[in-house]
């Protein structure tokens, strides 16, 4: 049976550079805190704002650096 993860709206943020070989930076954010709001462009150049999902959908926000490599 397919899980209803359909309520979730996944965002993938592609950035550059990762430092797995050394100590990767650790987030200062904690579970229970409000996620910092942001607006970033999607693949069509349209702005996507995190707070636009407030009250509508849960969000999985994945920072996937070096998306074009096996890194």
């Amino acid at each position, binding site marked *: 049976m397919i*899980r*209803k*993860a359909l*309520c*979730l*709206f*996944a*965002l*993938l*943020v*592609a*950035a*550059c*550079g*990762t*430092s*797995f070989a050394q100590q*990767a*930076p*650790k*987030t*200062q*954010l*904690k*579970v*229970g*805190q*409000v*996620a*910092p*709001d*942001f607006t*970033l*462009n*999607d*693949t*069509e*150049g349209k702005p*996507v704002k*995190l*707070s636009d*999902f*407030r*009250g*509508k*959908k*849960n*969000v*999985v*926000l*994945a*920072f*996937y*650096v070096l*998306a*074009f490599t096996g890194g």
Partner: protein
Amino acid sequence: MDSFAANRRFAQDIGVTFPLLSDWHRTVVKDYGLLDEKSGYSARATFVIDKEGIIKHIEEGRTAIDPTGAYQACNVFEHKKS
């Protein structure tokens, strides 16, 4: 750094069904504490955020690429709804 245009090609290649965003100016990785300012590199991480904008789960480092933790956190939402 990946532009939205480069991401578009990537999204087409792998057939993503969700928004693929470009943090061109590294502002968001900085806000989320994932940017190493000295090297300019950033870390991988996954955050599960509920409808109220509250962080419910954080996966960092090498395990961030594994969706298991986020998937389990999502299941908690489902159980709470039912």
